[in-house]
């Protein structure tokens, strides 16, 4: 395992409507042993409210990293991605698209909308855990994330 070089606790926003997938992702993060504070929202509208600190998210922290599912109720994940990347306040936050879809059209569209990486969720648990761990090691230990004074 890579040694964490992050001085502070990383804050992750997980945008996931499927409760089982959300729990498995949390389990994966727990087992990867990277210190993080995870916030879960279940649709695109909530994700945008969280990022804009609106309503009940007025005191929400600015996440260091976003895990984004594509097929979401209300505002779709594809739209969330475009909105975040078009917003000068938010565009620097790395977005990891984490989805079941491996359709070429989804992959291309996500990168064109400036997704930082696109990861297909594996079906089998061991692979799923391994994938979450690799994402964690890369984004939270290898990569130097932007320092957000906000």
């Amino acid at each position, binding site marked *: 395992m890579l040694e964490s070089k992050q001085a502070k606790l990383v804050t992750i926003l997980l945008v996931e*409507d*499927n409760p*089982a*997938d959300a*729990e*498995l992702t949390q*389990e994966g993060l727990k087992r990867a042993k990277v210190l993080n504070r995870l916030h879960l929202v*279940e*649709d695109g509208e909530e994700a945008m409210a969280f990022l804009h600190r609106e309503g009940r998210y007025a005191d929400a922290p600015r996440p260091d990293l976003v895990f984004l599912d594509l*097929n979401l*109720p*209300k*505002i*779709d994940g594809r*739209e969330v991605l475009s909105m975040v990347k078009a917003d000068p306040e938010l565009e620097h936050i790395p977005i990891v698209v984490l*989805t*079941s*879809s*491996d*359709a070429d059209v989804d992959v291309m569209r996500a990168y064109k909308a400036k997704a930082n990486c696109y990861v297909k*969720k*594996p*079906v*089998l*648990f*061991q692979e*799923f855990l391994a994938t979450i761990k690799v994402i964690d090691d890369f984004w939270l230990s290898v990569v130097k994330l932007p320092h957000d004074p906000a």
Partner: protein
Amino acid sequence: MSVPDRERPADPDATSRLRALVEDATGLSGPAKARIFDALAAVGAEFARVRSGLDASKAELVAATDAHEAFAYSVSHDLRAPLRAIDGFARMLAEMPRGEPNAEADRFLAVICQSAKTMNDQLDGLLTLSRLERQDLRYTTIDMTDLAHTVVDEVRRREPARCVTVSLAGLEPAFGDLAMMRRLLGELVANAWKFTRSRPAATVEIVSHERATENVYVVCDDGVGFAPGAADRLFTAFRRLHAPAEFEGLGVGLAVVRTIVTRHRGRVWAEGEAGTGAKFYFSLPRLDGA
């Protein structure tokens, strides 16, 4: 995906050039000439008929290809989610110590069973869509006012406690498969019923408009509606605009609607606004306009 266009441009002068050719070559005059020209006109009309049939087949092929792609996407994407839950929670369960009653273990088992059920329901939904895609259409003229009344009565009986005012009268007749039209109206009315559930007194209106080549039918409700940007996703299988806790369902009903309308060479679309209601439109070619 599009079908390559191999058609040659139409030549409106072909018939007159053919006439000139026949006249030159045979030197015919009088009734014999008239008979040959009649025969030529008949050949021209037959050609036009075959060609319009080919155009329709091409449109059907494009629709079938789109449906096939949507089907493949669902199988590869939507059916994997419950499978991932089944494997994940079963593995976590397997890691637990045995023998003692354990609330967490019970919860994991419940997730596994629920996921299996979800997957089974999704497979049923795909099977329904695939059957509607392949089933032969038996065209008849349908009194849509009568059919809509029948469908509304059925939906009303399922939820007798609901207070829903329905306005419908004088709908344009349709030319289509009766069983499929019944299913189509059933899905739209059930949809209107479901998304007006939070209204103590809801209103559903069914109207139709006659246009040059098609009739347009509209089912309007004053329910929770949807964000205008989401209209495109509504008719895709398993795409849902609401969380399961708000409104139950698999996300197949409106995909059924689209499949049926597309098979009848019509179009579907929707307009909505969050909080104020939704309008679902479908068009069907008119029997005298086709």
